[in-house]
């Protein structure tokens, strides 16, 4: 177990190093931030000053060397725009995005698993056909369009929910969260649902195919021959088996929900990391973009590790050891 963890962490560090190099070099190739940051009336001298202050006048290899050196000391650079550490900016926005992603994750499970299991148990019922058609919509409708439609319906027409922004927050261990109050939750519902819809469609399909496969297995027949109630067979025997693929996929998807909530956050003007990224790209705020992408890599690596550990907990046949 320990050896496994050490090996995984080693792999993770390698991925992060490779990612840092690629991200830094490719961002360097895009535009000149000085053009955007400087006053349109600035002359060449002022431009050169800004360039020198931001360290952009140094040759590429020197900039990169400095970046790596600072990164090793936990400093991913200062935002050109806010003149604050990039990492700090991201971490400030992170609770909002994490909250959004987790609420979306819970929504996709709560919506997806019951619908999927139901349509797996009764594949020919009209309700199951409706669920499956619905899941195709969930897959194929673009995220931003769904967001806009939800705003039109629930915020503009019905006026039930706010159209965007983040609700009032309360501090839990110093982290501002908004899901604890109804008022805060109201702001979360629409963006979280938008983000959850695609994942829910995925969960529906996974749990449906898992259920259809499981009910044909001998262990289900044997469970019935033992006289167990259908409820117990579905909730214990079937569900525990289909949770294995569902957890794997959802874990991986959680990473992408955190990292790429960008579109949803933009549509709902939700002040999360995604919105920060879009804004930073618009302003060519290189340190923030690099820091954001580094953060995403770390999040993905950590989530993958957690999924592997969870997988072992769910499936007793998986043991986290090297093959003997």
């Amino acid at each position: 177990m320990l050896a496994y963890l050490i090996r995984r962490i080693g792999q993770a560090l390698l991925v992060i190093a490779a990612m840092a190099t690629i991200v830094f070099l490719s961002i360097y190739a895009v535009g000149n931030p000085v053009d955007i940051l400087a006053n349109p009336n600035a002359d060449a001298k002022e431009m050169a000053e800004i360039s020198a202050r931001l360290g952009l006048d140094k040759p590429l290899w020197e900039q990169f060397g400095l970046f790596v050196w600072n990164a090793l000391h936990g400093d991913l650079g200062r935002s050109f725009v806010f003149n604050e550490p990039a990492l700090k900016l991201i971490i400030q926005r992170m609770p909002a995005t994490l909250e959004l992603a987790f609420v979306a994750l819970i929504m996709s499970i709560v919506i997806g698993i019951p619908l999927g299991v139901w349509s797996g148990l009764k594949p020919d019922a009209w309700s199951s056909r409706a669920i499956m058609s619905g899941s195709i919509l969930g897959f194929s409708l673009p995220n931003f369009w769904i967001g806009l439609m939800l705003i039109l319906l629930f915020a503009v027409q019905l006026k039930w929910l706010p159209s965007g922004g983040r609700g009032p927050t309360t501090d839990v261990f110093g982290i501002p969260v908004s899901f604890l109050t109804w008022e805060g939750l109201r702001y979360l519902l629409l963006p979280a649902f938008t983000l959850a819809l695609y994942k829910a469609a995925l969960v529906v399909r996974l749990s449906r195919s898992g259920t259809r496969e499981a009910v044909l297995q001998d262990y289900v027949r044997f469970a019935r021959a033992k006289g167990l109630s259908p409820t117990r067979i579905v909730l214990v025997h079937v569900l525990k088996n289909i949770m294995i693929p569902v957890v794997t996929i959802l874990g991986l998807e959680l990473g992408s929900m955190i990292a790429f909530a960008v579109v949803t956050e933009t549509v709902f003007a939700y002040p999360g990391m995604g919105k920060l990224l879009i804004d930073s790209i618009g302003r060519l705020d290189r340190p923030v973009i690099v820091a954001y992408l580094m953060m995403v890599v770390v999040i993905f690596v950590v989530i993958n590790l957690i999924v592997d550990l969870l997988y072992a907990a769910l499936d007793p046949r998986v043991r986290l050891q090297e093959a003997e």
Partner: protein
Amino acid sequence: MRKPVLSLHDLKVEFGTRQGVVKAVDGVSLDVHAGEVVGLVGESGSGKSVTGLAILGLIDPPGRIASGSINLDGQELIGLPDSELRRLRGPSMAMIFQDPMTTLNPVLRIDTQMIETIRAHENVSEKAARDRAEAALRRVGIPSPAERLLTYPHQLSGGMRQRVAIAIALLMNPKVLIADEPTTALDVTIQSQILAEVQQLCAEMGTSLIWITHDLAVVAGLADRIAVMYAGRVVEEGDVDPVLDDPRHPYTYGLLGSAPSRNRRGEKLAQIPGMTPSLANLPKGCAFAPRCVFAADDCKVASPGLTRDHTRTWRCFHPVHAREAAQ
């Protein structure tokens, strides 16, 4: 005569398929008395497993029990709602299946799978159920049962897993146990151990046993009575010795001839020509006629009815002994 514990009468099970309605079980009648061991023999597709599943009410769509009667201890099972049937599965009738690798749920521990069985039928404490589960494992010859309770199925060998399945099936002291080829997937040595254990346990508990198999050798040593199935029908049924020593139906005769035997070493192994007919497209008359060396014209016209003597019944116009006597 004693009243049978389980009595099938003219049981018909059909499956709706694209090729039409398949009569997987076509008029099976069978009596099983208390403590009796009945061997249900036939090739793949003869309807023996479906018969077993029908008794437990485990036929799923597109299959259905078309007609007939299944009487268990005086109670008619056909038409009973599933909630009532569920109460009988376990305490009145139980079933074990062919492949021990897949009968146990791979993600649940043995204790979970045993305790849930008891608690589905009786309102007992977890502790009491656990003790009974442990005793049941000990009874089927599993060493250190308390530890085995805490394992997952994949940590046990095939033979162990089948023992666990048997222990689970016998947990509620069923009146009838249906064993659907439970030893086919196991090593020969394990096979005979399990065979002997099931036989002994059933005898101790007074449980009647229906042993479904394609292996006549297994039945010969185990069963009191034997029913040979072909294409959804029982073609010969009776006490085990007369049926196996002196079969009437050409199919039974052919089956016996195709089993390797020490007494006929070196001789060419007899075969039954052809293969099991498609149930969707059965020939008119006797279903076995196209493969039968004794078949005459009348076999292809009408289906033979039951003939009986004092030890058995059979369905054949030209039973084996009659033909031999004629020669």
